[in-house]
């Protein structure tokens, strides 16, 4: 559909979104799920993973030599990390917006552990309120 590099980036991006949903569902990290239901997390994850590959295959034969416009090893490596990093950011944004009405508990732990019960947006709001409260005192 697009150039092969863009198609490959999109494949990795959507497949990585699916993989993050599966990992979050397995590890019960509710703040990374698009829907606050573990079973739905598995379904969405598998759907995104399978859908990304199905779409990529449907765009035609993408196996092209590097010297004829194909994506070579080093370029694949870079595009994979760009797609995966983009998927992490997109997951956090989408999960935060999708669960915006979900009231979480107080922030516990750090890093991904803090997203077990709350989305990134909720954690950021708690942090911001704490910082403002501390600032006023």
């Amino acid at each position: 559909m697009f150039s092969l590099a863009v198609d490959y980036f999109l494949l990795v991006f959507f497949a990585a979104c699916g993989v993050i949903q599966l990992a979050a569902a397995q590890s019960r990290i509710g703040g990374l799920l698009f829907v606050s239901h573990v079973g739905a997390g598995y379904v969405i994850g598998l759907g995104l993973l399978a859908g990304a590959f199905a779409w990529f295959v449907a765009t035609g034969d993408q196996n092209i030599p590097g010297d004829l416009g194909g994506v070579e090893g080093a370029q694949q490596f870079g595009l994979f990390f760009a797609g995966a990093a983009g998927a992490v950011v997109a997951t956090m944004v989408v999960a935060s917006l999708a669960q915006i009405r979900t009231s979480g508990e107080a922030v516990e732990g750090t890093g991904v552990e803090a997203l077990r019960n709350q989305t990134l947006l909720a954690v950021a709001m708690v942090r911001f309120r704490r910082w403002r409260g501390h600032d006023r005192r």
Partner: protein
Amino acid sequence: MIDADRQLFEWINGLAGESQALDNVMTLLVSDFFLPVLIALAAFSRWFVGRTAQERLANQWGFLYAAIGAGMANLIIQIFNQSFHRPRPFITLEDVTVLFYRPTDPSFPSNAAAFGFAMAAGVWLTNRRWGAIIGVGALLFAFARIYAGMHFPLDVISGALLGILTTWFFARMLDQAKPVVDWAFRLLRWFHLA
């Protein structure tokens, strides 16, 4: 040794064309975008998996080992191929069944095998089960490369060994640089990315 390598290649590649169903499976497995992406995604998934923060941190170290091992193995092959060029089987032998496009880069060592086994070795260092699962994917990818006429068995074996040893070496280097890596993890944790 070269003769044995050629004979083994001819036996494996001789299976191509015998069964259309098997050829279709191998054409999928040899693709640049199927198993390599699945292998990398399987390793990437470890970043978020863990029942506890400690288990997740160990898995994240595994992904780090895998990514750096695969990257460095690729770099070593690029440098090595500046001075050594073994032609592909379909160039040196007659009657090779080719199920894929004909790459122009050197055959030895196999970059595909180095990538797959480097990823498997990196994950294996922190999680045996997932390391073995990724290893099976790497093995299938390596076998498909021979079946499809892309590599001699020796290319694949040397690529696999290079991937495993490179990952092991750079994992030890990363362990030596643990304070720096820990600092990077703390920074990522502040942004809830690790």
